[in-house]
């Protein structure tokens, strides 16, 4: 499912918001979520999961083409931990796919 398919699905499941509003709302939510992580804060969505930042210490990497050593600064990378409900649902439907 892509972002536009998600917007489509949400628009069809309710009648109070126009397609344009749903589109705006989805983009606005994702914006705020990205901004939150960019500012170093975590996100906690009950039932879905949480996003946190994992620290990566500085290291010396190599340019794979030339083999030259390059110093890479420390950084943070976003990490998603699925919540209990999502974890259980995804695992419950697993058996159906295998059969």
């Amino acid at each position: 499912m892509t972002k536009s398919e998600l917007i489509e699905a949400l628009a069809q499941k309710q009648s109070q918001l126009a397609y344009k509003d749903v589109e705006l709302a989805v983009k606005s939510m994702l914006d705020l979520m990205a901004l939150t992580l960019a500012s170093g804060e975590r996100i906690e969505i009950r039932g879905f999961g949480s996003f946190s930042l994992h620290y990566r210490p500085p290291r010396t990497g190599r340019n794979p083409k030339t083999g030259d050593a390059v110093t890479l600064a420390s950084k943070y990378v976003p990490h998603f931990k699925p919540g209990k409900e999502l974890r259980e649902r995804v695992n419950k439907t697993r058996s159906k796919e295998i059969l």
Partner: protein
Amino acid sequence: MALTKADLAEKLYDEIGLNKRESKEFIESFFNELNNTLGNGEEIKLSGFGNFSLRAKSERMGRNPKTGEEKMISARRVVTFKVGQKLKSRVEA
């Protein structure tokens, strides 16, 4: 303080002009849709943000780190998140 559903609802209320009930309902249906989709075995790609994919894990031997006791961990399916390029560079900066 972490960002929660209430903060997201507040944003829709402030910026899009949904009323408080609509905002709250929208946030719920948004995450419900993500849960349902992944629950049905379908992956989600949110351009600019990241991809949620599903991974089948086979049965393996694990260990309780506290007691050192060995135990079989059953085969399972898990959700993994791969951050998109745009979000990745925003967080690194």
